């Protein structure tokens, strides 16, 4: 989808990133490097700044200081190039058009992303099938369950075949089958060379697929030793 990126080895790079919202420090001095083709998982309590980080990477929020780059493109100065590289799923099911059905939502977003009609149709069918949404694809989003909407948001994020995928709380509302499905998708993305960032309150069930695991706390990120998650894998299994 994107012309030759300026940096081949780094998918996501965040340097000294800070952000205050309504007078409160949300991100202090965040540093993060995610090599291309790897999966990075970040956990943090509610309000820790996970969504703020994803929003900055998705170019819908500006940092107060520091830099964020996707595939070498700065999120502030090369917003459009960043948006062409990413697929994002925000933790907001209202970001879907509830009066449209699943298929129409994908059609709409695929078309505004500049995909040819036939490609959107083929890709939508494939993703709806992979995410087990074919049976409900013709029904209004308003009538879907939270888990189904969550999977539809994932399908939408993957529609343009992005090289970097940002997933904000992708496990929210998913049942066990949905969680397994999502993990399979993340593993598939990794196999295909995609860079994946997952942020969630709990990431411990991702240790088998994540290349790096971190905790966002007090506005800063610290790396978690994978062994820290041993014994807690059941939380997302």
């Amino acid at each position, binding site marked *: *989808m994107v012309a030759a990126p300026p940096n081949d080895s780094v998918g996501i790079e965040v340097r000294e990133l800070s*952000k205050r*919202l309504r007078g409160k420090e949300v991100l202090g001095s965040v540093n993060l490097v995610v090599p291309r083709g790897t999966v990075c998982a970040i956990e943090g309590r509610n309000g820790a700044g996970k969504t*703020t980080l994803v*929003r900055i990477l*998705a*170019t*819908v*929020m*500006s940092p107060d200081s520091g830099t964020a780059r996707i595939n070498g493109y700065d999120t502030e100065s090369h917003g*459009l190039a960043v*948006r*062409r590289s*990413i697929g*994002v799923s*925000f933790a*907001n099911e*209202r*970001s*879907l*058009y*509830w009066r449209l059905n699943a298929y129409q939502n994908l059609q709409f*977003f695929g078309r*505004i*992303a*500049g995909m040819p009609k036939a490609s959107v149709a083929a890709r939508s069918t494939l993703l709806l099938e992979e995410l087990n949404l074919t049976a409900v694809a013709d029904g209004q989003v308003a009538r879907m369950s939270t888990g189904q909407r969550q999977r539809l948001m994932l399908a939408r994020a993957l529609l*343009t075949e992005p090289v970097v995928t940002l997933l904000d709380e992708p496990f929210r509302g998913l049942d066990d089958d949905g969680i397994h499905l999502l993990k399979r998708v993340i593993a598939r993305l990794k196999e295909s060379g995609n860079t994946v960032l997952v942020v969630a309150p709990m990431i411990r069930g991702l240790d088998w697929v994540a290349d790096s695991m971190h905790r966002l706390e007090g506005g800063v990120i610290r790396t978690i030793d994978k062994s820290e998650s041993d014994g807690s894998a059941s939380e997302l299994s």
Partner: protein
Amino acid sequence: MSGIIAGFWGLVAFRFVSKLVNSGQFSGDSTSYFRFTVVGLLLVSILVPTATGASMSARNEQVQGTLEYLASQPVPRLALGLSWSAYGFIESSVIAIIVAVLTVMIGFNVAHIDIPVVIATIFLSIVIFSAIGNLGAALVIMLQQGMSLVAGLLSVVVIISGTLFPISEFPSWIQAISHLSPLTYALEALRSALLTNQAPTSIAKDLAILTGFALMLMPLSSFGLSRAFRVAQRKGSLGTY
């Protein structure tokens, strides 16, 4: 359908009002005031939704919760603003064309049609009102309000620009203000192209002024929209309403 009925019904009312108007430039012909208002109302019925459509769509996206996701899509933000204007424009144009056809049935006829002038006037007006709409959308994105300001401003512009009355009927200070409105020149050019045999220099002057408005407002609205997204990004308000 309701838009077509409302538009047609409004013009039917003016068909009868025109029978009462028999003074000034409308004396001697009971249909001349009707023709005057038809041109005004049809143009306004396209331009106002084009302008308000952008701020309404931006507000709808905000309230629905889809604005933030749209802003994360690989599309220039200006294109989003233009697509919001386009929706209002397309819908209102279809309605206006149907109403125009129906209006012929109740006595609307034109003296002559200068097609190039009509096309140029409508095109320039749409560009201008799309730009105004994008400035309105910028307000909504930045402040999460501003729709009523846009609607209020447009209703004033519609009246003072001579949609329903010739501006010569207004007090001189309103006439002075009306010359700041692009709609004044659009209406003058369109009426000249459809209803009167005005000198080409007069039409050319109106079109030149409209071109000036378009050239000024297009970059201004582009800057305004881009600035609004920047401000909202800094405030972190794209996902809130």
